[in-house]
């Protein structure tokens, strides 16, 4: 057992993946000597060399576009996008090339590319450093989208994402980089594209991913003190969604609240609400509620605590659902 942070877990996972497969290359801005602005790639260039940990020019479309060529040549590029709000210059390459080449080539060309994006708010950053762009990618056929929420998942999920022959957008909740947990490397992980019940309950189901899992766990504990049994599911995979545990849970509790930092309209919560109503309509005791960011640009950081869903806003939604 080792105590690790989320940042360290991803770093260790990257190292393990590079040791396991010489075709794994890391590319991005400042990922080499500096080890990334969050130090997630710390020490990797020193140990694996400049050919495998590539400090790229400062152009995101270039990072993803050259990753496509490297993947065609048999490499497994792991691209770091420095911050969520900087992924958009690469959006065309991701959506029109990375996502579609497998389909376009009838499966002949594989795109085993991982796009790591530190995402979400809560670190007091300036504009473009606190966004939640997951719905853009989950809406795109050909991409897979996952979000880790804790150090142990960070360690395993990054390795699983790199091993995937499909392109994976790998979302890292940057405000949780310093959260700690015990890692037991002998415990084998579950599959990458699976959701997990992280706290059992019987009255209501909270659905979250990334940074909001911790918030929902805290809300569940607080609700318990008021005599309410709230189940929490860490979705982990956003595309494809793993609906089986979600539907099982909602059939049991009859109530669901989806929580994410991303703006509500057409966010993951919209899709989850639709799927739940399609597949377990007669089990529902109340409408599926959504707690999320407002349909505004991310605000200046002095008011981000008010903007972001927190314990109280989650509990408020739990109350409203149970009042039905």
């Amino acid at each position, binding site marked *: 057992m080792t105590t690790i942070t989320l940042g360290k877990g991803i770093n260790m996972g990257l190292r393990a993946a590079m040791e396991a497969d010489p075709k794994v290359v890391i590319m991005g801005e400042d990922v080499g000597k500096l080890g990334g602005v969050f130090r997630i790639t710390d020490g990797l260039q020193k140990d694996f060399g400049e050919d495998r940990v590539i400090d790229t020019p400062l152009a995101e479309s*270039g990072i993803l576009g050259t990753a496509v060529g490297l993947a065609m040549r048999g490499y497994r590029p792991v691209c770091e996008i420095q911050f969520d709000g900087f992924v958009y210059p690469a959006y065309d390459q991701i959506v029109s*090339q990375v996502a579609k080449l497998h389909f376009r080539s009838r499966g002949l060309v594989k795109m085993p590319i991982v796009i790591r994006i530190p995402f979400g708010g809560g670190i007091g950053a300036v504009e473009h450093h606190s966004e939640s762009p997951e719905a853009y990618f989950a809406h795109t056929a050909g991409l*897979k989208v996952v979000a880790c929420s804790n150090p142990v998942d960070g360690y395993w999920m990054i390795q699983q994402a790199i091993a995937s022959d499909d392109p994976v957008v790998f979302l890292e909740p940057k405000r949780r980089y310093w959260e700690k947990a015990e890692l037991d490397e002998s415990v084998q992980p579950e599959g990458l594209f699976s959701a997990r019940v992280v706290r059992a309950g019987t009255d209501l189901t909270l659905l979250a991913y990334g940074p909001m899992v911790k918030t929902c766990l805290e809300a569940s504990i607080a609700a318990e003190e008021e005599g309410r049994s709230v189940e929490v599911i860490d979705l982990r995979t956003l595309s494809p969604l793993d609906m089986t545990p979600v539907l099982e849970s909602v059939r049991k509790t009859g109530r669901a609240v989806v929580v994410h930092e991303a703006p509500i309209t057409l966010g993951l919560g919209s899709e989850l609400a639709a799927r739940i109503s399609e597949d377990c309509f007669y089990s529902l005791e109340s409408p599926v509620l959504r707690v999320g960011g407002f349909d505004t640009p991310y605000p200046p950081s002095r008011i981000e605590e008010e903007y972001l869903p927190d314990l109280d806003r989650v509990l408020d939604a739990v109350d409203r659902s149970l009042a039905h």
Partner: protein
Amino acid sequence: MTNDGFGPGLGKVFGPQHEGGGPELIQLLTPEGERVEHPEFTFDLGDDAIQGFYRDLVMTRRIDTEATALQRQGELGIWASLLGQEAAQIGSGRAMRDQDYAFPTYREHGVAWCRGIDPLHLLGLFRGVDQGGWDPLADKFALYTIVIGAQTLHATGYAMGMQRDGAVGTGDPDRDAAVIAYFGDGATSQGDVNESFIWASVFNAPVVFFCQNNQWAISEPIERQTRIPLYQRALGFGFPGLRVDGNDVLATYAVTQAALQRAREGSGPTFIEAYTYRMGAHTTSDDPTKYRVTEDLEHWKLKDPIERVKAYLLRNGVVDDDYLASVDAEADELAIHLRKGCLELPDPSPLDIFDQVYEEITPELEAQKAQFAEYLSSFEGAH
């Protein structure tokens, strides 16, 4: 010396519209079919190679003519004609070695020919039955890329992979490899193309940037893309650039061969501007009479890439009329193959689209596919 506001004479030096491509144009075969010398570049193959190029040029033009006809008859949704650009494509395509890799736009039918791809495979995309019917890995010819300029980054990344594979600068002619990235004059305004120049330059990647400047990006003339000759941009990115007569198959071959060899040896990228002209419409959906004058077309007809090779071969007794007739007959055979094959291309099944989105179909797509299959089967027996 004049002063046009940019400095002494700069307007004259950098104006993009030099008659005939300007004094910097590299040419080894004149429009009249005369061989000329160039101080830096030599065509070092024999007349048999030129005879082979002639066949390539004629076959390529025939593919294009037949595809255009198929579109006019409703058998293709659209076709992007390469009329006028045959020499640029055959010259550069024939300069490649087997281990090299090409990244095309959607107009590189002549390069596909050089890569040994059955031209029938080019038609699927335009007929709407697939997205390109060849194997991009085995044929070392990427699928057609429609987003303008996106492939130049793929080319550069692929070249970086060659570097990492130890396939550059070993001195082994069967091992050392390079990439050629095709794009047009319009694409030079795209961010991706400029980023690929930077990447290739700073990583010294073995890639040849082959720009067919056909003077038009649909309706926009070259003046809307640049104020200086395109090849001169290369200097700012830190690698050599040159302008070749894109209607001269010998010169195009010679400069591309040199640039590819330079890349294979590990000396980095080169920018080639193949100065040519789009004789046809942008695609079969386009109407160039709305934006350009026929005088230009007449001017460029005199520079036809095939006529000059024919003139050279006949004048020097390399071939006779019987040979020319046999190539024409072979081209007609190819056209029949294309036409017959096109009409026989099977439509894909609507249910097939679910299977190639991911390595393995996801449960979500499996469910959608099953639902769609059930829906489709509900029409069975209906009229």
